[in-house]
């Protein structure tokens, strides 16, 4: 199975160097389309998506992450660094199960 990357120019170009196919997106429409395309390919194992792009289509991504098992989705920081508005992993888990770890 393969990786697939959705993100800005640098992310796609960079991972392209390591042999990952991907799509450069700028608008929510493009992002949604790329996301659907990535998921529709049965050979896609892991989708890398930059946080800023994921933010554009947040409801779609979240629905997918919490409901579906496959492919796996990873949000990665882009060249500007990590988005500060995203909660840390531990807090996300706490919120998800409703108890404090």
């Amino acid at each position, binding site marked *: *199975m393969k*990786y697939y990357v959705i993100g800005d120019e640098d992310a796609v170009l960079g991972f392209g160097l390591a042999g990952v196919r991907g799509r450069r997106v700028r608008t929510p429409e493009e992002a949604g389309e790329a996301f659907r395309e990535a998921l529709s390919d049965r050979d896609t194992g892991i989708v890398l998506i930059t946080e800023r792009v994921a933010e554009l289509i947040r409801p779609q991504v979240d629905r997918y992450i919490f409901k579906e098992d496959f492919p796996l989705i990873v949000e990665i920081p882009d060249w500007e660094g990590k988005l500060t508005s995203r909660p840390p992993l531990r807090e996300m888990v706490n919120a998800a*199960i409703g108890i404090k770890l």
Partner: protein
Amino acid sequence: MRATAPTKTNLLKLREELKFARLGHELLDQKRNILVVELLTLVDQASDYEKKVEEALATAYASLQEAALTMGKLRVSSTGAAVNMRPTVTLKQRKVMGVVLPVVETAFEERSPHYSPLGTSVWMDKSVRDFQEALKLMGRFAELKASIMRLAAEVRKTIRKVNALEKIAIPDLEESVHYIQNRLEENERDMFTLMKLVKNRLTREESEAAIP
């Protein structure tokens, strides 16, 4: 409390049910504890990996930027197109208390040299390596994140079941058993006094019949 007829059969049945519910509660409680421990270790590992991924990506982006500065973005992308490298993902599964978790393995299939070292910057080579490193981390990170999501969902489900048993089902059954037991005892006492009465009346009639 359920509306059950206060009979001996129902009492036995409810007692059996109560025993079963208690056993289930104990098992689910254990399951929850095991899942939470597993989840904790995974979350620790994942936050570790998150940092590593961030660092690896930051270095990789920096290298790419240098490469773009020295060679121009267009040439970086055209040279990059020549890189013959194919990362492949193998997905396996492992099970924790019946929850299926993914295990990701990333392998690289590459045929180097990819491009002529003449006229390409060293940053180009470094970008390729850096992104390859980042991608290696990414597989494991994806695995951890997906595992956490699934485990969290399972923990939530288990907690709900444990609470339902502990707060509703078991007290309910206990109350029913108690109620039926009381009713049966009450009936017994009723019968006892009734018998006494009958016996008294009989002995009185007997003695009255004996006197004349």
